[in-house]
């Protein structure tokens, strides 16, 4: 008797070994894809979108690469997801987490091939991950109390993060820039208040951090170009024709004269609104929405600088830096908090005119102006800087720091190896495999730099067998170096997130023994 078909026609089902194989292969393919971008000598990828315009992105950032891929393999999707989460949560280490998960699965595949049950492997991985975390915790350095040293740590972390990115040439410059920007936030992780403006032209070195706030807008014609000791009103209100909001209202007139009357009344209404705004005693008015010509002219007459159509983020930031509140009604000017700044002026960057607010009251927000040869460079620079800023802001909250350059992996591998030796039973194989997967990260860093990875990693391992070793890979000189001297540091939070989410993802994929794919939904053809 024929076996009944249970699933729908196009649905497919893969079982046991085949299912496991499919997910291993998919996950490893993804890991291999981003592997070459790891480390200071990692290479970039070009991504071409399939959409109209075939826009091109050049990047080194794992999360960006994976986000743009169209993937069919469900296991690969798990890896893409962890990389995305890593990006949202800590901002950096997006490549490492995928590579580690891939390596874990590669080792697991060997174990499965030698007939060890996936559940045993998972149990081993879990023990190993816990042990690795403990090992890292033992070696963390926390300089929270010492401000001077803490700042040094931040600098080091920033440099380490940036060194694998396009900004590596000017990492000193950018690291300082990022640290300054993050320290201004005073512990908040709200990166929204750091504005990044990209302007093509000049070189990356010309990028700078501006203490004040720069708004990418032009000053209206006939309005003052420079205001000292400005009182700023930040508003979100309609400055075109103010609509009547009562539902169902409409104008119904029976003669032209009345139309004119109504129009006059409308104008009068706008004029009153402007007068009310002016009554705040301001000399600068920033609105989120459009300002029509008529009110603009009124503002110009009053000698007030009016800036229209600042986007929502811009408004929020401006309110944050100048200390004003975002106003929508203007009936009681005495109680509305105005923003203040020492100087508003128009500046030129490249060919564009921008408005700069300097000497602001609250120093939280700041602006980074990136300069660079092309849009691609600028986009990538922004991503890199964003990574650095994320890591730094997280470090400010959790100030534990580790060394970089493959050092944490070797420390973990050593601890995990010891655990493997003392664990009885089949689990020890899995634990051993975990340590092998950890070592794969320094190996990849060395490989990407064109170094003899086998030799280097072996030497590194020997070095780490001594107590309290700070040895890591010095990619520049191609040898083993002392990481504390070289000043290569990484944030503990990033490493921990990498370790835990990679293990979690590997575990998830290992537990699967059957893949059921539903029939893809048919898109209805649009006419």
């Amino acid at each position, binding site marked *: *008797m024929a076996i*009944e*078909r*249970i699933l*729908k*026609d196009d649905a497919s089902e893969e079982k046991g070994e085949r*299912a496991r194989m499919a*997910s291993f292969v998919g996950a490893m393919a993804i890991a291999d894809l981003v592997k070459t971008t790891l480390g200071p000598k990692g290479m970039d990828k070009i991504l071409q979108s399939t959409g109209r315009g075939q826009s091109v992105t050049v990047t080194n950032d794992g999360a960006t690469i994976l986000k743009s891929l169209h993937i*069919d393999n*469900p296991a690969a999707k*798990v890896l893409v997801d962890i990389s995305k*989460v890593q*990006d*949202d*949560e*800590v*901002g950096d280490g997006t490549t490492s987490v995928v590579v580690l998960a891939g390596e874990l699965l590669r080792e697991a595949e060997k174990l499965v091939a030698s007939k060890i*049950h996936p559940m045993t492997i998972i149990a081993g991985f*879990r023990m190993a991950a816990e042990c690795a975390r403990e090992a890292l915790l033992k070696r963390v350095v926390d300089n929270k109390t010492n401000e001077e040293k803490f700042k040094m740590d931040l600098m080091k972390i920033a440099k380490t993060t940036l060194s694998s990115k396009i900004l590596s040439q000017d990492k000193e410059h950018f690291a300082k820039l990022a640290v300054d920007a993050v320290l201004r936030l005073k512990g908040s992780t*709200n990166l929204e208040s750091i504005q990044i403006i990209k302007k093509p032209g000049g070189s990356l070195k010309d990028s700078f951090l501006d203490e004040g706030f720069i708004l990418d807008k032009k000053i209206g014609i006939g309005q003052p170009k420079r205001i000292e000791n400005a009182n700023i009103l930040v508003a*979100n*209100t309609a400055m075109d024709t103010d609509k*009547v*909001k*009562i*539902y*169902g*209202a*409409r*104008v*119904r007139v*029976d003669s032209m004269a*009345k139309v004119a*009357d*109504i129009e*006059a*009344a409308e104008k009068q*209404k706008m004029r009153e609104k402007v007068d009310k705004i002016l009554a705040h005693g301001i000399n600068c008015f920033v609105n989120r929405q459009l300002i029509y010509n008529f009110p603009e002219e009124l503002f110009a007459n009053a000698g007030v600088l009016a800036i229209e159509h600042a986007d929502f983020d811009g408004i929020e930031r401006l*309110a944050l830096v100048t200390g004003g*509140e*975002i*106003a*929508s*009604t203007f*009936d009681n000017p005495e109680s509305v908090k105005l923003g203040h700044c020492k100087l508003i002026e128009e500046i030129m960057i490249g060919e564009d005119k921008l408005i700069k607010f300097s000497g602001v009251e609250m120093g939280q927000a700041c602006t980074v102006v990136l300069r660079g040869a092309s849009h691609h460079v600028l986009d990538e620079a922004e991503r890199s800087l964003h990574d650095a800023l*994320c890591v730094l*802001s*997280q470090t400010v909250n959790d100030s534990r720091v580790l060394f970089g350059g493959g050092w944490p992996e070797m420390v973990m591998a050593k601890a995990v190896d010891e655990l493997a030796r003392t664990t009885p039973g089949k689990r020890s194989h899995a634990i051993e495999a975990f340590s092998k997967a950890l070592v794969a990260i320094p190996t990849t860093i060395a490989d990407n730099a064109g170094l003899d990875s086998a030799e280097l990693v072996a030497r590194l391992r020997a070095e780490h067998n001594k107590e309290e070793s700070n040895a890591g890979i010095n990619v520049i000189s191609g040898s083993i170096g002392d990481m504390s001297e070289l000043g290569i540091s990484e944030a503990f939070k990033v490493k921990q997130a990498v370790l835990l*989410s990679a293990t979690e*993802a590997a575990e*998830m994929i290992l*537990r*699967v*023994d*059957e893949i*059921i*794919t*539903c*029939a893809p*939904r048919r898109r209805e053809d649009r006419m």
Partner: protein
Amino acid sequence: MALAFDEYGRPFIIIKEQEQKTRLRGLDAQKANISAGRSVARILRTSLGPKGMDKMLSSPDGDVTITNDGATILEQMDVDNQIAKLMVELSRSQDYEIGDGTTGVVVMAGSLLEQAEKLLERGIHPIRIAEGYELASRIAVEHLERIAHKFEFGENNIESLVQTCMTTLSSKIVNRCKRKLAEISVKAVLAVADLERKDVNLDLIKVDGKVGGKLEDTELIYGIVVDKDMSHPQMPKQIQDANIAILTCPFEPPKPKTKHKVDIDTVEKFETLRKQEQQYFDDMVQKCKDVGATLVICQWGFDDEANHLLMHRNLPAVRWVGGVELELIAIATGGRIVPRFQELTAEKLGKAGLVREKSFGTTKDRMLYIEHCANSRAVTIFIRGGNKMMIEETKRSIHDALCVARNLIRNNSIVYGGGSAEIACSIAVEAAADRYPGVEQYAIRAFADALDAIPMALAENSGLQPIETLSAVKSQQIKENNPHCGIDCNDVGTTDMREQNVFETLIGKQQQVLLATQVVKMILKIDDVISAAEF
């Protein structure tokens, strides 16, 4: 044949377009049905028990789900076969009724079908088999009652509840921190439970998740978490002792349902309308302020002007809060949902000790925590995890654990897990079989064999020798007259499930047996399958 003749000898058609339909009759139909049912059971078989594997499901839109939960697997499987759909229904009804044991019920039904097939081959009539199964299931349910234990728990003595929830969680991916999740689930259920009436309304427990962090960061919040932030960026992020106005009317000018037009034909009217509009906004905010609210939660949006007025009058507000969440907030804070500004009074305000906004990660994700509520009867379980699939799977696992805890509050009887209950039933049914004269005896014996399938699958999934292990445990049960011997899945070294603390709820187990038997009876009674032609 399906062709009949009337008294004049003309054929009349019973089934339209017969040729295009496939039709199976008699034994063939039963066998086809059984094989379909079994293949569904086969898919789930490997997911059973603490060492069970997960399934990866890829939806029509390409979203990936990884799960161990029987009901979820079957629901997402895109099943086409009618009998297979029955099995899906079976697992779903177990999910609705009990919430846990959705995999077990399907495996049991599968093995009942398997045994039935053998009996059919020997020429026993399907109805007799069904009757035998019915008798046997009654014996099994009674026996379960006999071997069940009552166990005591109270507000402070939750250990036994936690242990039972842990048994449920141990088969899921979250078993790494099952202790913590079990405790959270039990505490959540006890917080909302009505111990007098022995009832729990699970709707009062909100399970929410956000990616990032690790599973250990999952927490229980005595209050509500809403995925929203303050309507104005400069409103205070933390409010102590909040008086909450819960509104379902927008901060916008009224929109009467009846069609109307306001005609403006003179300048004066234009002016008055404008004044009225401003007055309207002012009144709304003033009204909230007057009754003493310090936080406004609204189901709808605000106009920019209203937003600023609220901010200006120092009245923080949250907009676009969903209906369900609004209800939960109302329950938790003891407030009333107010549909019109005119009806707002001080008594209708909800009270909460602390309302705060919390941000996550590097993105601009913010959530609103409403804590220390006047009435802590609504709680939130807030899950963190490495990736989206993990969160989803954790949600499902927590749901199972919550259901188990609820069932225990309804009925505090438990049976022991690890297949021990099934083995005990199997022995009891086997012994009872001999007392029945007639063909049913065979069916009852087959039922006993079918019950063995669950411990067998458990042993198989744990990498043990299934037949060897099962027979050892069975003989031990009979020898020691101890119905608590089960399969030692975790290699602890003892087969006594009392020592291993593996519990399951009595009603869950009974329901499994009853539901599985019912579905199998239904399938056995089908002797004709007519399916429409393929297009």
